[in-house]
């Protein structure tokens, strides 16, 4: 009797087998922290609707040691998220000028430039730069 072609099972830990998969999983996992930050903002809006005291309590919680640690982790993850995705943009959005391909670093640089401008505008509107 001849056995059928053999299909190798894929273990649940497949992503630990190679560095490239681990890096991919880390990149994907950073979005959870972006989600967490969105949730914090939503809670803030909700607390604002409950009045001044509620909102002050929310701000105090953000500035508590635990809140600061959470904030720092979120910022770190947001940076990893942005950097890893920005670095991939030349693949998704190649630019051609005539028959020349614009070098990848210009496309990546454009994204960083845009990031800085948008951040400055947001900080300005929030009163941080005035």
């Amino acid at each position, binding site marked *: 009797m001849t056995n*059928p072609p053999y299909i190798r099972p894929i273990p649940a830990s497949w992503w630990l087998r190679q560095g490239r998969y681990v890096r991919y999983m880390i990149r994907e996992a950073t979005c959870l922290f972006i989600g967490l930050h969105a949730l914090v903002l939503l809670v803030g809006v909700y607390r604002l609707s409950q009045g001044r005291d509620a909102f002050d309590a929310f701000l105090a919680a953000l500035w508590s040691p635990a809140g600061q640690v959470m904030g720092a982790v979120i910022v770190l993850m947001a940076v990893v998220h942005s950097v890893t995705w920005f670095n991939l943009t030349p693949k998704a959005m190649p630019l051609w000028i005539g028959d020349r391909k614009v070098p990848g670093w210009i496309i990546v640089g454009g994204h960083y430039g845009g990031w800085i401008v948008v951040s400055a505008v947001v900080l300005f509107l929030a009163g941080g730069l005035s």
Partner: protein
Amino acid sequence: MSERQITLEVLRYRPESESEPVFQSYSVPCQEEWVVLDALNYIKDNLDRTLSYRWSCHMAVCGSCGMVINDNPMLSCKAFLRDLPDHIRVEPLHNFPIERDLMVELDDFMDKLKSVKPYLIPDQPVAEEDGTYRQSSAQLKKYKPFAMCINCMACYSVCPQYGLNEGFVGPAALALAHRYNVDSRDQGRRAREDVVASNTGIWECTFVGACSEVCPKNVDPAAAIQQTKIASTVDYFKDLLMPGKRDKSGNAKQAAGDGA
């Protein structure tokens, strides 16, 4: 010429006597300039005639010698021993059923390759007596890298989405679809979209990017897929804003001039 003793640990599967694959070790006296394929040929010629594997050109052109060497899928005819340690593990490509030893079953890929219509679909075919299609070098450059695929299947072997989701069309086939979609002579993007722009096509890809890292021909399938995602999103909004431009059956073969 110096000789180096190398241990090749080869995954073997003999369906007539084994129900699962097992590793078998061979000690091979290798020459400095050999590639892994030479070592396999040495085994076949001198140590074990029953070892099965595919190869043909021995020059990175035919794509038939793809296998996993020390965890990385590559062409065994391009894997130089001088770049590898003394102990080398050779396995068949991952994510495909093993037929025998290092040979895998490619039927699934062949079906998927056909499904993306990998040929020119011009709006107005040029009659033979009218000559050939004209194309500038700038237009050629847009698709040329994506036309270099030799179907070695390294990208499928390393793609977790292909391994985990049976239906996924996969990197090489989608890269080939993109190769035709961006060819100035082709207007077939709409004809390909049922397969390409579907949940088992480009949208199954989560941009792991491993395919592009291992491709021996620098095809960059990951880039092809992300670019197709953008084009398909633009199509979606075009259809939403200008529904009349498309025939009702959803079969948009005739969507003239829309395939650039």
